């Protein structure tokens, strides 16, 4: 993890954004932009995204991924198998302390052999990318320039690059390279406002449509050694309901995807969880009750994810997402009781 401090310049910009006048201007611009968007834009962008999502889920593939972030490079092996409608995935890091993530549909198990810990995480990935709704297409079109980029060869395969360039400073840029034959993303890059890469995933070798079997996605051992600790997260998705919390100054283009309470491991009380998306990325807002003692607050960063925490009376507000620090900070400071 790399901690980061918001520069003074961002703070000044933030101040500007949070003025009501600024918000009004933005809203006006959005309306104008929406009216002017050719329908083909959103559909073209969405077609690429949908194809990538479908390929990631529906294909069998095995390859080596290089993950670069904050000056670090990590290499992992990924195996993905779809068998009889069931999804299996195994991710093993190849350097540093051994870590293994094994996913079977919505159940994720993380193995930490050095610490002899297994974490079991019930996860629901179906929520992540439902068919894009018309308003999400509009949001994409209103807040990103979409264009096709170059043809490039990656991991030995021909890819088509496509780019989402943000129209404002509230979001990062995205560049994807999709395998032309299958649509699978072979490389993805997150770019900051200076067009510098913040985070990148790339396959350096991959076999798509490989003949795979369950053997290649099985856990490191069939029964857990007795000296391992099991840490299990409470199951359950967000039960949609009003939480009593609201984001008063939501950055343009973000719309609420879900709101509710959920139980999290290590938290005694249910945590309010609100998710906002601009069609391409999501920002989560968590609000949990805390004792009235000072909590760790401020901005931190992990790869392409920025996190901002602040204390609001007896609550800790944490906002995180694939968005610039100033954006998560703006959201954090506009969280209020409904």
């Amino acid at each position: 993890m790399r901690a980061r401090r918001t520069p003074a310049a961002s703070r000044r910009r933030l101040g500007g954004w949070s003025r009501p006048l600024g918000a009004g201007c933005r809203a006006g611009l959005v309306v104008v932009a929406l009216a002017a968007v050719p329908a083909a834009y959103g559909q073209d962008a969405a077609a690429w995204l949908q194809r990538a999502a479908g390929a990631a889920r529906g294909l069998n593939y095995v390859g080596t991924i290089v993950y670069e972030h904050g000056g670090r490079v990590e290499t992992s092996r990924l195996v993905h198998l779809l068998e009889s409608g069931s999804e299996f995935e195994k991710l093993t890091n190849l350097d540093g302390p051994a870590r293994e993530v094994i996913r079977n549909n919505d159940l994720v198990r993380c193995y930490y052999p050095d610490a002899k810990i297994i974490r079991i995480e019930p996860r629901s990935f179906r929520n992540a990318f439902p068919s894009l709704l018309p308003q999400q297409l509009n949001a994409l079109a209103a807040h990103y320039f979409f264009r096709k980029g170059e043809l490039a060869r990656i991991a030995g395969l021909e890819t088509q690059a496509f780019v989402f360039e943000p129209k404002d400073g509230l979001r990062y840029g995205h560049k994807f390279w999709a395998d032309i034959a299958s649509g699978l993303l072979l490389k993805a890059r997150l770019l900051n406002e200076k067009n510098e890469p913040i985070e990148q995933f790339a396959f350096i070798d991959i076999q798509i449509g490989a003949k795979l079997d369950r053997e290649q996605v099985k856990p490191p051992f069939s029964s857990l050694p007795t000296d391992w600790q099991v840490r299990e997260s409470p199951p359950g998705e967000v039960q949609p309901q009003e939480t009593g919390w609201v984001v008063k100054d939501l950055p343009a283009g973000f719309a609420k995807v879900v709101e509710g309470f959920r139980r999290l491991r290590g938290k005694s009380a249910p945590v309010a969880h609100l998710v906002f998306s601009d069609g391409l990325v999501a920002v989560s807002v968590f609000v949990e009750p805390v004792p009235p003692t000072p909590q760790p607050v401020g901005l931190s960063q992990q790869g392409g994810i920025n996190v901002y925490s602040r204390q609001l009376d007896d609550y800790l507000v944490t906002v995180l997402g694939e968005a610039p620090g100033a954006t998560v900070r703006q959201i954090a400071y506009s969280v209020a009781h409904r």
Partner: protein
Amino acid sequence: MGKLQGAPGDDGAAGAMVKAEEISLLVDGELDVERIEGVCTRLRDADSVTTWVCYHVIGDALRGSSAIMPGFAARFATRLAAEPTVLSPPRRGPAPAAIAWAAAATVAAVSVVAWVAMTTLPIGDASLPAALATARQAASVRAADTRPAVDNEYLLVHQEYSPTTAIQGARPYLRAVAATDPNARP
């Protein structure tokens, strides 16, 4: 960066003294890795400690912490000087030295700014609002923003809803796993 006017140690003294800016960078976790050890070593100087603590607690003091502990900075410096140097090279995981230091200083030193204010400002004097304004300005770069470790539980839950998770398969899970120290969790 806002200028921390009147902060002890910010008088431009050169040489072995730690510059206030270096302390600010350290507090913010922005100091170059190569410089951390040197700055921490030189932090054993009492004035530097006061500056360090000042950066940390000025925001807290403004928010109403009022416990006064005269001589805290001096005691802190003495204790610090007696501590062995335990800074290890940067490691993976959520507890870089800067966070640990910041947390320790914040927890330990809530009232030094109040103390500094009490000993340097005639309370009730007309200059107090100006001093507070300066302090407020300093607080905007304040280190009360001690860097929190990214809450992995949140990160994992967030992935479920992130469109990038879906278009990139489980790859974003790398983020969650790459930096996770399972022992550092509650």
